């Protein structure tokens, strides 16, 4: 126990300042009114859905919870159910086999159902494109508010995308 506490003290606080939102990532105009955004603040619940990614984007989404990005300190947390989510963070080209599951998760999410599409695949189908097995970009299956390109996008870029989704102009 002594070693453990010593290590915590030695490590100190690593958290870095969060980035600013970027209007350039917005796909559809902000649907939430200012009063609602103010109320929401940054108390955001995110449900992540891998709709067919290679797991690269997931690695960087995981990184959001490390001490450097520490996304939870901003009031943003990942939830286990779409029913508890304000925002869906969707990766991958949407695999045909995941189309139905993604649609159902979207249907279960309470309004206003913010959606952030993640990665080159989420934005435009990426290298996998559209085929018998892939529906391509996320917007082909559910409406998207913000799209974050990158292969995979860095944790910094993901934070920008998430913060853009809950910011006004």
């Amino acid at each position, binding site marked *: 126990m002594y*070693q453990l506490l010593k290590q915590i003290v030695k490590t100190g606080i690593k958290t870095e300042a969060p980035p600013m939102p970027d209007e350039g990532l917005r796909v559809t105009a902000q649907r939430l009114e200012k009063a609602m955004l103010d109320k929401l603040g940054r108390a955001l619940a995110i449900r992540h859905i891998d709709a*067919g990614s290679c797991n*690269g984007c997931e*690695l960087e989404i995981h990184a959001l919870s490390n*001490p450097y990005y520490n996304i939870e300190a901003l009031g943003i947390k990942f939830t286990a159910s*779409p029913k508890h989510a304000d925002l869906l963070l969707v990766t991958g080209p949407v695999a045909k086999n995941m189309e139905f599951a993604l649609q159902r*998760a979207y249907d279960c999410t309470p309004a206003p159902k913010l959606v952030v599409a993640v990665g080159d695949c989420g934005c435009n189908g990426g290298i996998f494109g559209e085929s018998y097995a892939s*529906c391509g970009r996320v917007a082909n299956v559910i409406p998207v508010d913000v799209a974050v390109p990158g292969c995979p996008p860095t944790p910094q870029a993901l934070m920008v995308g998430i913060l853009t989704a809950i910011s006004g102009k």
Partner: protein
Amino acid sequence: MKLLDLDFVPLPGALKAYRASADAAGLMAFAQAVKESGGRFVALWGSDERDLKRGFTLHVAFGIEQGLALLELTLAAEAPEYPDLSEIFPAANRLQRATYDLLGVKARGADSRPWLRHANWPADFFPLRRDADASRQFPPGNEDYEFVRVEGDGVHEIPVGPIHAGIIEPGHFRFSIVGEKVLRLEQRLGWTHKGIEKRFEGLTLQHGARLAGRVSGDSTVAYSWAYCLAAESLGNTVVPARALFLRALFLERERIANHLGDLGYLGNDAALAFGFSQFSRLKEDWLRLSGALFGHRFMMDAIVPGGVACDLPAGGAEKMLAQCDGLESEVHLLKNIYDEHAGLQDRFLTTGRLAPELATLLSIGGLAGRASSQAWDLRTQNPVPPYDRLETQIVIQRNGDVAARVAARFEEIFESLRLIRLLLKDMPAGELAATLAPATEGSSAIGWIEGWRGDVLVSLTAGRDGAIRRCHCQDPSWLAWPALEHAIMGNIVPDFPLINKSFNLSYSGADL
């Protein structure tokens, strides 16, 4: 080389790999002999050769003492069938089903439930047939999959997925339980199938590397290397020595990054959040240096056909060595904390045990295999340069439980740090890449690389004008997923996330 009356010819390239044609009886006899002599089933895939008037071909790869033995069996153009290999190697089951879903060649009398096809394309549409139009889109269907039912007093089922509760790839797990105890787990995977193998068709050999690097994102280096090894072997491209050293450097950095991440989550899943924050911090430092030195945190597309796309910048070796020293002492300290933490060890020890005999039966290799006494590591047994001079120490654990898989990760980190230092010390000067030599139409080659999770195999056949005719990528997870079904038996449901994490298998890699 002659084995069991089969004439094996060496495949091109640095790997010890041999190919032979066999008939159905010869294939089964060979498989039986491999099993009896302590060899391993490695891979199975099919190809459509009807345009060459050769029907279909079934390809089966085995790991034997001499290296990789690849057997090819010609199948009829109409109603193609082959004998059920899962009778000898149960691990062939899902691969046979996937091969049917994609190509329409059938294992006679075997489990015929679909695997990659989830009723979202018609049962008579076989995408890997050369005349199949891959751009066709079909209306989604609703599948009624036949799970094996467990019956008895108080038995009930818990269905989980495809969307899981955490930040994780999709899959479906059907638990049959009584009280808290798991009687049986049955996996239904294939959700992230995105048509990768069809997508390869027609890409240039150069372009294929990018796709191979995105089969399973956490193993991008292993996949790119395996792919490039195959592509270079096709035309006997000589890769510069410096490029080979850099590739090994990337591969060991990828191994350490993933092991650090897993060790953090394993602590977290056993309620030690301290472990997660410490290891995820170390992993982030590690990824940042990879990003700073090589332009990408996961070194995607750093390995290209012919060599590598980026050099070690000036001062990079010093930074890396300093980071290795710092990481080594921190990981030693954290290992001590993990080892002495009674609550953590209580969760790790005896949990999710995969007995060595069962591991052998299931053909499991890689990290999870080595934690159950399966001494397979290509870096020692079939080393491609520069591993032929590194004398990699294979890490073996015997208990096969979560604790063994944790211990194996710790030890492999220390061994990889040793390899990185060695690579930096002996790094030769010179070119970064050679021009990829053109491949003759119809030639094929294998790439086989020990990634952090296990052996990644890529089989590549050249088509016309330097394009890809067929590319099969095989993830180690194909053979490890069924082992997880066994490791959970008799454990309690709340231990599943921990056991699952201790294997940390790829969904995308095996869904293709």
